[in-house]
C-alpha cells in the first residue's frame, strides 16, 4: 500500500494546487497579492503549477507603502519581467497625497496600518472578486481561525465569528456584487514547510532573507534596518550587524534577526532551532494583543 504515499510537502502542494484551481474556476477577476516575500513567491510558484502548461492568467498586485527595501523592489521588477506577468501597484503614498489616509508621525511611525485602505480602493477600482494571499494559519493566533476561502463583505471586513464552514474540502465561492474572497492556499503550511519547499523546488528569493551586513538600530529588543526616513529617539543609535529577515514587509515594521545563515539549508537549520516565532519581530503585531485580528477585520491581509 505504501507505494501510494506522498511526503508532507507533496501533500501540502497538492492541496494548495487544488484550492488555487477551485478559486480560478469559481471567480471572475482573481489577483495575486504579491509582496516580494517568500510566501507570495512560493504561492506564485504554485500558481504556475496549477496552470501548467498554460501561462499564469492573472495579474499580481503589490500594495506599496513607499517604505520598501530596495532589494524587494528590484527583485520584484526583475521577477515580473522574467516571468512575463502583469504587475499592478497600489500605492499608499498616493493615498496619503490624495488625503484618503493620514500618515502617522514620530518615533515608531509606520505606514503598515494604512495598507488596508489602499488595498480596498484597488479592489473596488479593479472589481477583484478573489485575492490570493500567502498568509498561513501558523503565523498568528487570529490567522489560525482563517478559512481557505475567506469571505469579505462589501467593506472588505472579515467576520471571524460568522465564517462559512468548510466541509470535506468543498469550497463555496458564491458572493454578492462588491463582496470578495481572500484565498489562502498555504493555510496549512508552517514557516519550516515553506523553507523546505523552497529548497526542494529551488525557488529564488530576495537576498534579504539571507545573512548580510546592514546598518541597524535596536528598539524594544528588536533589530530594525535603518533608512533615512526612520525617525530615531535620542537613545537609539545606528550600528552595523550581520542580520537576515524572517519576514519582509515595510521597512518600518519588519524586525531582523542576527544570523550567519547565508543559504537556504542554513536558514532551515536556524528555523529548527529558533526560539522566537516568525512574526515575533513584527512591530505591527506587537502594538496590542489583538493587533492582527483588529487589522484583519478591517481588510488587512
Amino acid at each position, binding site marked *: 500500500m505504501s507505494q501510494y504515499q506522498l511526503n508532507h510537502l507533496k501533500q501540502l502542494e497538492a492541496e494548495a494546487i487544488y484550492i488555487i484551481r477551485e478559486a480560478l474556476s469559481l471567480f471572475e477577476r482573481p489577483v495575486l497579492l504579491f509582496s516580494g516575500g517568500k510566501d507570495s513567491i512560493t504561492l506564485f510558484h504554485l500558481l504556475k503549477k496549477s496552470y501548467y502548461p498554460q501561462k499564469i492568467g492573472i495579474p499580481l498586485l503589490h500594495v506599496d507603502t513607499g517604505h520598501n527595501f530596495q532589494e524587494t523592489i528590484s527583485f520584484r521588477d526583475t521577477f515580473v519581467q522574467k516571468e512575463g506577468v502583469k504587475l499592478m501597484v497600489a500605492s499608499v503614498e498616493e493615498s496619503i497625497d490624495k488625503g484618503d489616509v493620514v500618515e502617522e508621525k514620530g518615533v515608531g511611525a509606520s505606514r503598515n496600518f494604512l495598507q488596508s485602505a489602499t488595498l480596498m480602493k484597488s479592489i473596488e477600482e479593479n472589481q477583484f472578486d478573489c485575492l490570493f494571499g500567502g498568509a498561513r494559519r501558523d503565523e498568528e493566533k487570529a490567522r489560525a*481561525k482563517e478559512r481557505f476561502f475567506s469571505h469579505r463583505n462589501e467593506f472588505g471586513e472579515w467576520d471571524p465569528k460568522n465564517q462559512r464552514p468548510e466541509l470535506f474540502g468543498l469550497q463555496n465561492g458564491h458572493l454578492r456584487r462588491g463582496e470578495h474572497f481572500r484565498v489562502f492556499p498555504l493555510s496549512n503550511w508552517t514557516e519550516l514547510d515553506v523553507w523546505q519547499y523552497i529548497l526542494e523546488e529551488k525557488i529564488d528569493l530576495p537576498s534579504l532573507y539571507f545573512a548580510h551586513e546592514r546598518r541597524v538600530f535596536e528598539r524594544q529588543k528588536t533589530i530594525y534596518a535603518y533608512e533615512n526616513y526612520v525617525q530615531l529617539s535620542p537613545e537609539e543609535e545606528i550600528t552595523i550587524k550581520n542580520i537576515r529577515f524572517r519576514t519582509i514587509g515595510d521597512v518600518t515594521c519588519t524586525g531582523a534577526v542576527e544570523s550567519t545563515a547565508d543559504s537556504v539549508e542554513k536558514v532551515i537549520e536556524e528555523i529548527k532551532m529558533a526560539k522566537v516565532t516568525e512574526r515575533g519581530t513584527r512591530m505591527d503585531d506587537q502594538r496590542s494583543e489583538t493587533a492582527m485580528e483588529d487589522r484583519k477585520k478591517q481588510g488587512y491581509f
Partner: protein
Amino acid sequence: MIEKDMLRFCTVGSVDDGKSTLIGRLLYDTNSLCDDQVEMLQKVSKKRGQDFIDFSLLTDGLKAEREQGITIDVAYRYFSTEKRKFIIADCPGHVQYTRNMITGSSSSQLVLLLVDARKGVLEQTRRHLFLSSLLGIKHLVICINKMDMVNYDERVFHNAINEVKQFLVRMDIHDVHFIPLSALKGENIVKKSENFSWYEGPTLLYLLENIHVMADGNFIDGRFPVQMVIRPMREEFHDFRGLAGRVESGVFRPGDEVMVLPLGLETKVKSITTMDGEQTEAFYPQSVCLTLDDEYDVSRGDMVVKKNNRPEVSQDLDVMLCFMGNQELDTKKRYLVKQTTREVKAYIREVIYKIDINTLRKVNEGALRIVANDIARVKMRLSAPLFFDDFKKNRNTGVVILMDEVSNETIATGIIDHRELSS
C-alpha cells in the same frame, strides 16, 4: 528529499475536559512552542491570577474568545516531529458543537476524543462517537484524561473503556485506541509516567506518530472530477487540451481505458502532465493535468472514470443531512448542491426521519423541522445528475454541501447513503 508524512486529526470533548491543556501539552512537550509564546502564556496567566499555565490561550485566537474564556470556532494548530507533520483541528465543545465537530473532522483522518476520568462517558461523548462514525472516521483515540484526579485508578480506566466499547458495537469504527493520561501533569502524552504502572500501551505521541493511515485512501475506484480545462495556446503546446483536477480516488495511468461523464464517451488517458514532468501514474490526493486520446468537449464538473468501474449516476439522492443553517430547512425552497466540482440545484423531497442527538434515536413522527445542528435522513431531487459513490466506499465522491441561493451561506453537508443506516 524530506521523508516525512502527515496526519490530520481533530480534537473533541465536552466542556472543561482539558482539551486545550492537552493540545498545549503536546505542543510544549514536543518543543513546538517558542519563547515568546511561552512568555505570553506565563504573563497572561499571571495577570489573571491563575497559578498554572493556561494553554487555552494558545488556541483561543479571537478577542471575544479570550474575553469570554470559550472557543467559538475551529482553530488549526501545527506541530511536527522527525516522523510526521501534524495538523490539529481543535473543535470547541461549547456552542455549535455539532457544526464545529463536523467541520473539523471532515478534513481529518483521526479523531482524538477526550473523556474526563471523573465523569466517565457522557451524553456528549456518545454524540461525538456517533458523529465520528457517521463522518467516516477510521481511527479513534480515546484519552481518559485527569487520571491524576482519580488516584490513577485502573478500574476507572477500564470502566470507561467498557462503556465506550458497548456503544461502539453499533458504530462503524474499527481502529480504536484508549490511553489513560493527565494533560495537566503531562503524563503519558510524550513521556510515560510511573503513576501508570498498570498501563502497558503507548504514549499519545507515539500512537499519533505510528498509527497507519496511508491505506485509508481509496486506490480502487478511479474518479477524476475536472476542475478546469487547460489550453496553453503556445507554440510548443499547440494542440494541448488538458483536464486539470485532483484524483479523488483510484489510480490513473497513461493508456488506461476511461469514460467521460456525463456524455459517456470512451477514450484512453494519453498523458499525465505536471510542471515536474510527465507522470507514469496519479493517485489521491495528487493534483495533475490529464490529456485524453480523443478531443472531446469536456468541461468543469465532468468526471473521468475507469471504463469498467463507474460511479452511480442519478438525479435522486439519499443523504444523511448535517444541518447548520441559521434558518430552518425549507422543503419548498431550491438549494444549490455541490459535489466534487459539480454544482446543481436541488430541493428536499422528503424528510424521512431526524436523529435525536441526545438519545440517538430516530424521530419520524409529527412535523419534522430541521434546524441548526440537526441530523436528518432526507431524499433530494436534483436538477441534473451527479456522479457519486456511497460515502462508506468513497469519502471524496460520496459527499455534498448545500448552499442557500439567497444568503450564499453553506447550510449543510450531506453524506450519501443509499443503504439504510442502522440506528
